[in-house]
């Protein structure tokens, strides 16, 4: 769905399409993880995921991933209807194992980065990105 909550504040168009609950991880996301890791355990640490706490625009949220020594990093938007965002593969000559992109988030949800390390182990980082109508600050 198009993210329209912010735009509707004050005009209330398309209000019926809205929901307030955080978007839950769907089964497709779990399937993608299982496919990538083969069901292996994932360590916390070793991969850094940088994302805003609150999205300025849910349609284009800048994120950055970095995992020194990784051969691949998969990024998932756990609550999107199609959770797959990108998988970055790094060859042996890659100068650094980091990437940045912009993603579209259908609502408040977790973004997950999973790094496949050179030794075949996996590491995971999670960031909750809130998508909000906005209000008024002090």
């Amino acid at each position, binding site marked *: 769905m198009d993210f329209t909550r912010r735009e*509707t504040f004050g*005009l209330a168009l398309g209000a019926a399409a809205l929901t307030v609950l955080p978007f839950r991880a769907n089964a497709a996301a779990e399937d993608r993880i299982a496919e990538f890791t083969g069901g292996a355990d994932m360590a916390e640490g070793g991969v850094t995921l940088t994302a805003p706490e609150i999205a300025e625009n849910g349609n284009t949220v800048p994120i950055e991933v970095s995992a020194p020594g990784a051969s691949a990093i998969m990024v998932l938007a756990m609550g999107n209807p199609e959770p797959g965002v990108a998988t970055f593969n790094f060859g042996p000559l890659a100068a650094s194992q980091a990437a940045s992109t912009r993603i579209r988030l259908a609502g408040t949800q977790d973004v997950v980065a999973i790094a496949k390390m050179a030794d075949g182990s996996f590491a995971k980082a999670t960031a909750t990105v809130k998508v909000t109508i906005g209000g008024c*600050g*002090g």
Partner: protein
Amino acid sequence: MISRRDFLQVSMAASALVGASGFGNWARLAAQQALTQDQLLEFETFGNISLIHVTDIHGQLKPIYFREPEINLGVGDNRGKVPHITGADFRKAYGIADGSPSAYALTYDDFSSLARTYGRVGGMDRVATVVNAIRADRPDALLLDGGDTWHGSYTCYHTAGQDMVNVMNALKPDAMTFHWEFTLGSDRVNEIVEGLPFAALGQNIFDAEWDEPAELFKPYKFFDRGGAKIAVIGQAFPYMPIANPRWMFPEYSFGIRDENMQAMVDEVRAQGADVVVVLSHNGFDVDKKMAGKVQGIDVILSGHTHDALPEPVLVGKTHIIASGSNGKFVSRVDLDVRDGQMMGLRHKLIPIFSDLIAPDPAMTALIEEQRAPYAADLAEVIGQTDSLLYRRGNFNGTWDDLICDALISEREADIAMSPGVRWGPSLIPGDDITREDIWNVTSMSYGQAYRTEMTGEFIKVILEDVADNIFNPDPYYQQGGDMVRIGGMGYRIDINKPQGERISEMTLLKTGEAIDPAKTYVVAGWASVNEGTEGPMIWDVVESHIRKQGTVTVNPNNSVKVVGA
């Protein structure tokens, strides 16, 4: 040998004593009618550096009344912690006597009668006197402005911030950071900042297209003072494009960016900074969390949430200073910096009692120069008030009750919404309401009062969304405003529930019926972040309403039931 940690604690205790004895004396001296400017400014100069902090002035050039909140709830780890204590609890925590000048300055109780006793607060000509006095003690003191300066009054609106720029330039700050300034629109902000004779700082002000630091705003600036190298790092309001209209400054992106803050701290330390000061518009709880995550900040001068605290709050080795709003306070922070580290700190929150502090004549003249073209419009009396009119409080305030009444009656709405901003001075019973007073609580660059239809379900979505911006237990997800004020509708809120489950018992007050999620209601409000919002300006709506009332009376608002406080 005394360790650095012990030393800091000793000197924290010492600063608390300065605060406590100062406050105690004020109460006694005021009772003897002997409180003077000298006593307000009394400060035993300490160490080798002085910082002067002003923040969240919101365009207030002249003395005003400003009532502090009665309801200011903390959640999660901040429940019951400063600044989330008010009234008697606040006075007890800081040893402030009931009815004393400090009680008047820092707490809400008995406000109208104390306001008559102690008079108005603030006024930039009084602030100038205080700044000049500190500079007389310490000529190279750093003056740092935490932002929300070029917004919030009739003259500020009509000059697009130029009145405040002129006055602040005369006060000669050394650096500034930003929030509402951006609602002037990026072209105007860029124009002012390009000509600014001091540093415009924000390590978290980024170019939105490239997600790289914005060229116009530097992350930090070095100052050589008292034989030490001071790094001042700016932190603008993180959630500007969310809390305010993104379309007004689409070239800019913000965010907390604490990993970049750490990188900046490391960078200035590597370049030889002896002391690191962050000039912040994060809001107090966000600053507390950031101080726990980012290592190496000595002092955070905190703004945005309008808290005024008579003592620093210590997180690890970081001292956080909160200096109030609307020109009501100036903080003086003296630092002892030696051998590349901060050895001690002494602090005083100076309330600007406008009847006690002599105005600086040059600044008075400059202020009057800004106001002169608009003098007749500013002074026009629109009505009177029988009630105390104030804004601060998590759920409502009498000013917003009045504004919501105006929206319902002037715009023929079932329900009214007024944004939970924290700026806007107070009026006491018997006061005239002038046009200036109305603009002081409504002025902004997107003041259109919309009228629209919303379903009951959508109204709940809005309330849940805004509630989570205040009561999310993680401060990094808080935007630092208060709850949207609602007229014509009551509700129950359980602040400790997750988003989607806080709001219940929504009731249309005029019928006493429960709000039907499927039914459509006419809603009037103002300050929409949506581009192209149509409607008359809110100050015109409020002026028309007050004119019809003549004398305004605002009845106590009992329509919000708060659970979990």
